[in-house]
């Protein structure tokens, strides 16, 4: 890796192969890199290897061969006790929001800060800031059950953002939302990206990929089959 890459590369996969038990191949000799500040879609059919790629980045699984780099750190070389600190550099957004039902909007976001040892004072100033940013300034005391799907996902995004990660990974963040709501969530992601956070998003939505006109990486049967700078959504059967 040369000097320029070290300064600008956020994610790098070097010839990465993932093999699960029963010899199922998750990823097959995949190589690509994503620069800091990029907004990249990861698409492919079910079983193509998208989740495997994400789990490599969050250090949930290790590659069978090859290396995964994040912000200059070899993720597959991390010692177990370093992994939590590695994960603090990444904010993860889920398709099903994963909010805690017995906590308010505020508490759901504050939890993320409590976990990393933030002080009460930091939490009290930072959480309302983030909630305003995602457009939920007025809903801090509500419980997730009283929010719309779009609002719940905004809470999920706020929680992923609150510790100021340098990378946001979103696994089908609009999969459970109608298309109007999905567009407004995508606008939020674009705004977050404009402010400098790298975004890697898994999606099945052709419309979203085409509308956004961002880089698209296509996986199929664990292999990288396309990587378009300004891509459109096409998966050949």
């Amino acid at each position, binding site marked *: 890796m040369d000097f320029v890459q070290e300064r600008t590369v956020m994610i790098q996969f070097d010839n990465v192969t993932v093999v699960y038990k029963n010899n199922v191949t998750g990823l097959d000799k995949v190589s690509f890199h994503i620069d800091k500040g990029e907004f990249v879609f990861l698409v492919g059919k079910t079983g193509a290897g998208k989740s495997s790629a994400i789990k490599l980045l*969050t250090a949930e699984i290790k590659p069978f061969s090859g290396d995964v780099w994040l912000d200059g750190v070899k993720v597959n070389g991390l010692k*177990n*006790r370093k992994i*939590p*600190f*590695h*994960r*603090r550099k990444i904010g*993860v957004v889920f398709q099903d929001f*994963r909010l*805690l039902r017995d906590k308010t909007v505020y508490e759901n976001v504050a*939890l*993320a800060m*409590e*976990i*990393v*040892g933030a*002080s009460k004072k930091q939490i009290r100033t930072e959480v309302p800031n983030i909630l305003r940013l995602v457009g939920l300034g007025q809903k801090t005391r509500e419980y997730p059950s009283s929010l719309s799907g779009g609002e719940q996902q905004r809470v999920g995004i706020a*929680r992923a953002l609150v*510790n100021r990660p340098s990378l946001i990974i979103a696994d089908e963040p609009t999969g459970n939302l109608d298309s109007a709501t999905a567009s407004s969530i995508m606008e939020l992601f674009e705004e977050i990206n404009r402010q400098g956070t790298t975004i890697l998003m898994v999606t099945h939505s052709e419309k979203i990929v085409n509308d956004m006109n961002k880089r698209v990486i296509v996986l199929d049967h664990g292999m990288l089959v396309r990587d378009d700078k300004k891509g459109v959504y096409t998966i050949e059967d």
Partner: protein
Amino acid sequence: MRINRPFYFLKNALKGMTRNTEMTVTAIITVTSCLLLFGVFMLLSANINFIGEQIRNQCQIQAFIEFDATSEEEMLVYSQISNLPNVSDCTFVSKADAMEEYRAYLGADASAFDGLEGEEFLRSSVKVNMNDIEKSKELEMAIAAIGNVAKVSNRQDVVQRVIDVTDVIRNASLGAMIILLLVAIFIISNTIKLSVVARKDEIHIMKYVGATASFVRRPFILEGILTGVIGGAISLVLIGFGYTYVIKFMKDFLDIFQLIPLVQILPFMVGTTLIFGVLMGAVGSAIALVKHLKV
């Protein structure tokens, strides 16, 4: 991980305990029973040693001399006894001495015997200390064979019987305690498992946000330890009352030896019981976490 928010962990541990009250109560009862038996075992062990010391300092055998023996005959009995093997020393107790002892024993009620010398109804006797308490039976028989010896009392017999009985109780309580220990750890680990399952979503989120393993585990370990400590505290209260009652009973009905006073043994009991409770809780939750919480 900084331990700068102890209340965060305590709050979550208490939430875990109240989320599944029935299981928590069952776990506490099991821990209490186990530590109760542990307390019984400890008290019996300590008291057996304590009583053993008393026996060694106590006149073991008393040979009572025939009522109508002359004082020459009494002295003959005394010298014959003192020449027997295994006799370390012996004291002659005259009828008048016996009366004194009796008065002292009666205390305030002794006035009823004012004016009596003891000669009318008390026997003179020889108190015998021996070198080897194990051979007290042989010595007792040798003394009984001496002329003018009316009867021989050997308290060692009673004492030994009491020790045998307490030994049985002690071993039984140890056995039952070990079984209950395993049951308690099993039940604690099950309650913790339920807490882990109930907080599955939260743990999942914590993992993604970058919680360290110890941060995720701490409330559950604390929950186990609290269960152990509460069980320990309850058992200590029960042991305190129970032991006070036993001491009183022994004084009133079976006054052959003293038990260790409660205040003297209490700090030791509190220490060991609480340490045991904490360990049980910690081991129980550790087992649950190893099995059900992959961080």
